[in-house]
């Protein structure tokens, strides 16, 4: 059989794997201490020593980018984890049982869902203060509704299917039906939702850090690096370019991966 | 001769080995004749009908042979020429009345569509013809149905709407692709009677595709039996049903539960 090449899956896979590798390496090794200021290397151009150059304090951009990717990834993963776990819990119970509880919860859900997640996060941050964990909490809460909604609609679709009735006749209890019979059937939808959610989290986190209310200095963050680089846009555009490209890389990788996977599932 | 299909062959090329789904299909139809094609799913009966209707055009597919409808080869002619036939000289109804109508458009708009595309009748004339067609399709209260949406109607009524829309331009040939499969038995019988009436009164030929042998028996004068892309047997209704020659036809007929004393199918 002639095999159709799945470019999306391949490109996405390569981008994601290299990104994950880079993050993994950054945990154990970075070329320079990302926080060490070197007054001799202020705004140094890209060279053999500093492959992406240095910032206005003489910190190595490449090292900071590596650490920043790690931080962004950490926040995004935490956010998505929180959204998924609570989303599955809320979505499965409301979807399976329906009724007045479902009605009320979904109203609330819809209202939260309608808000731009970054705005919700802003409210939380203005109440809780900034920082890595606050951001995870804030974005995580903002992300729960979208996951709950997806899981719920899948459960509503599945609970009417004959195999669920058949499982009930086979003596399976409600919890067993929900988590052993139905939940595995939502995996395709859930998986692509996780990838999309991950990307939204990356964009939201970097946006908040760009505004100065995300990951707090001195910890490196891609968004903050870009907002600092704006001042030097005329003389050193590459200072903004590299962190920007890293965000692009991360988001593109996951987006293509998701695209490729759904392509494979469809064909 | 109204329709002449010669050596129709349809093959797909989406895999490395081309897969032929219809082999050497031949059929002639005279005006006013009702011909049935029976077969199980995957036998190629719908595929052949869609090719005749000019509705098969995929780039990974080849069609060979000839299909002359009033002298025009519907396999090869341009979309321009085809459009003049479709909905005008040739009406088509499909299996799923639930999804075959545009959910966002009013029934009247959809029934009139053929007139709007093929004639330059005015608005009031079109409406008149549409109401007449709806009434002929035995829909109760055509005025009301005219301004309803598909979701307001039951499956049987939607199929009547489809028939009204196909009949409005007075076609010479009606291709009916499993038109009754998703309907209840009593509605099925009504739809079949309706098609019979149209054929008799307007001299319209009907190509009736179905997997239900008893329906084909009630409606058609001639029948083709298809299996895995081949026409394995064809001929008079009586001959084929009473004295089937091909083993597959025999098997098909044997598969139908018999009711002693009530005759066969």
């Amino acid at each position, binding site marked *: 059989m002639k095999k159709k090449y799945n470019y999306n899956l391949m490109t996405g896979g390569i981008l994601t794997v290299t990104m994950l590798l880079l993050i993994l390496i950054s945990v154990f090794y970075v070329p320079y201490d990302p926080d060490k200021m070197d007054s001799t290397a202020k705004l140094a151009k890209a060279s053999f020593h500093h492959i992406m150059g240095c910032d206005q304090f003489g910190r190595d951009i490449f090292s900071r980018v590596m650490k920043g990717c790690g931080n962004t990834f950490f926040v995004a993963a935490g956010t998505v984890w929180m959204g998924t776990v609570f989303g599955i819990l809320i979505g499965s119970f409301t979807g399976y049982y329906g009724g007045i509880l479902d009605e009320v919860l979904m109203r609330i859900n819809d209202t939260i869902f309608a808000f*731009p997640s970054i705005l919700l996060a802003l409210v939380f941050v203005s109440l809780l203060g900034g920082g890595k964990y606050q951001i995870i909490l804030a974005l995580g809460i903002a992300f729960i509704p979208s996951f709950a909604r997806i899981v719920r609609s899948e459960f509503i679709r599945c609970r009417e299917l004959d195999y669920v009735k058949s499982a009930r006749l086979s003596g399976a209890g409600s919890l067993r039906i929900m988590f052993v019979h139905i939940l595995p059937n939502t995996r395709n939808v859930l998986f692509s939702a996780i990838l999309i959610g991950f990307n939204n989290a990356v964009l939201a986190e970097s946006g908040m850090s760009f505004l100065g209310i995300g990951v707090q200095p001195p910890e490196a963050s891609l968004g903050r690096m870009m907002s600092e680089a704006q001042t030097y846009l005329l003389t050193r555009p590459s200072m903004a370019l590299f962190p920007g490209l890293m965000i692009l890389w991360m988001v593109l990788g996951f987006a293509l991966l998701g695209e490729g996977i759904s392509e494979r599932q469809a064909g | 001769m109204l329709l002449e299909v010669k050596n129709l062959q349809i093959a797909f090329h989406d895999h490395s080995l081309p897969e032929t789904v219809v082999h050497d299909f031949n059929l002639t139809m005279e005006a006013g004749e009702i011909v049935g094609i029976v077969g199980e799913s995957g036998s190629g009966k719908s595929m052949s009908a869609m090719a005749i209707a000019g509705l098969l055009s995929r780039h990974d597919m080849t069609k060979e042979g000839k299909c002359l409808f009033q002298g025009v080869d519907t396999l090869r002619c341009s979309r321009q020429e085809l459009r003049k036939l479709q909905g005008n000289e040739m009406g088509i109804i499909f299996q799923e009345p639930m*999804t075959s109508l545009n959910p966002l458009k009013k029934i009247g708009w959809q029934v009139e*569509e053929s007139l709007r595309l093929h004639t330059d009748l005015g608005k009031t004339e079109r409406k008149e013809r549409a109401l007449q067609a709806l009434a002929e399709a035995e829909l109760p209260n055509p005025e009301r149905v005219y301004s309803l949406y598909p979701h307001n109607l039951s499956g049987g009524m939607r199929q009547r709407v489809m028939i009204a829309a196909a009949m409005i331009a007075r076609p010479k040939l009606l291709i009916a692709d499993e038109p009754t499969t998703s309907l209840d038995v009593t509605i099925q019988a009504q739809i079949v009677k309706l098609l019979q009436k149209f054929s008799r009164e307007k001299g319209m030929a009907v190509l009736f595709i179905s997997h239900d042998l008893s329906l084909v028996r009630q409606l058609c004068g001639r029948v083709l039996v298809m299996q895995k892309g081949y026409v394995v047997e064809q001929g008079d209704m009586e001959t084929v049903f009473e004295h089937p020659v091909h083993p597959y036809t025999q098997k098909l007929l044997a598969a139908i539960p018999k009711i002693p004393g009530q005759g066969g199918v």
Partner: protein
Amino acid sequence: MKYAVRKVLTMGVTILVVSFLVFLAFHIIPGDPALAKLGTQATPEQLEQLREEMGLNDPLPVRFVRWLVAFVQGDMGTSYSYQMSVTQMIGEKIPITLTMGMMAFGMMVGLSVVLGIYTAKHNGGVIDRVICVLNQLLMAVPPFFSGILISWGLGLMLHLFVPGSYVSYTKDRGGFFYYLLFPAAAIALPKCAMAAKLLRSSLIEELKKDYIRTAFSRGNTVNGVLYAHALKNALMPVITFWGMALADMLAGSIIVEQVFGIPGMGRILLTSISHRDYPVVQAIIVLIAVWVIVINTLVDLIYKLVDPRIS
């Protein structure tokens, strides 16, 4: 009609509930407005007196109703940091942000319809593929990055505008719109890419449906099928997306205003958050909430207009 009334009523209730929640959230947080107003040197008596004046000793529901009535009448309270009316502070900024948002929305809708239809129609062609790759890239660009790229490329390199500067509406109308064009584009581009992609796949999906075959069988042209039959159906999910994008654009504008140095709502919101100027933050959040809820109701109403199946 009944549907519309129900939707509008639901909208009213939702707005009430949401504004109460926001009100509640900003009253749980530590900090005493009276203290914030008078400073730490104030004596306890002075504080108590001011609290009484400001009505801070009344029960929560009473305070909420009072705040709500004042809010509806246009009095959104007084800023802690600037000691001036919040209404006045925000009032000047709303038109700026709103203009930018609507420009971005217009760009998004126009471009996505054109691109979506074109790519769906020429599905698999060279231009379709190029646009799809471009779309994929654009979707991955965060708005501040696209903003920075636009500032750098169009501003610093091509000198089409001066990054960081802003032209007031009262001084130069043309300049006002011209200078908002670039930030609007920065907001619109990623959303536009998503909308175009959504419309493309929605159209392609729609063209596979049974009623499309019916339309062809009546002798429609390809364009006839596309515009008279498929497009309206395919637009349904896209309308939802547009609605969400319109709500999202306010959030996007907060960031993009920062990139382009535009003194809009976003900038006030950020400074107020960092100064813990709660009356301002609260007012802006409630306004945005109302905006979002109204848009959602509008989307529902448009749906009802387009789709007869909804009841």
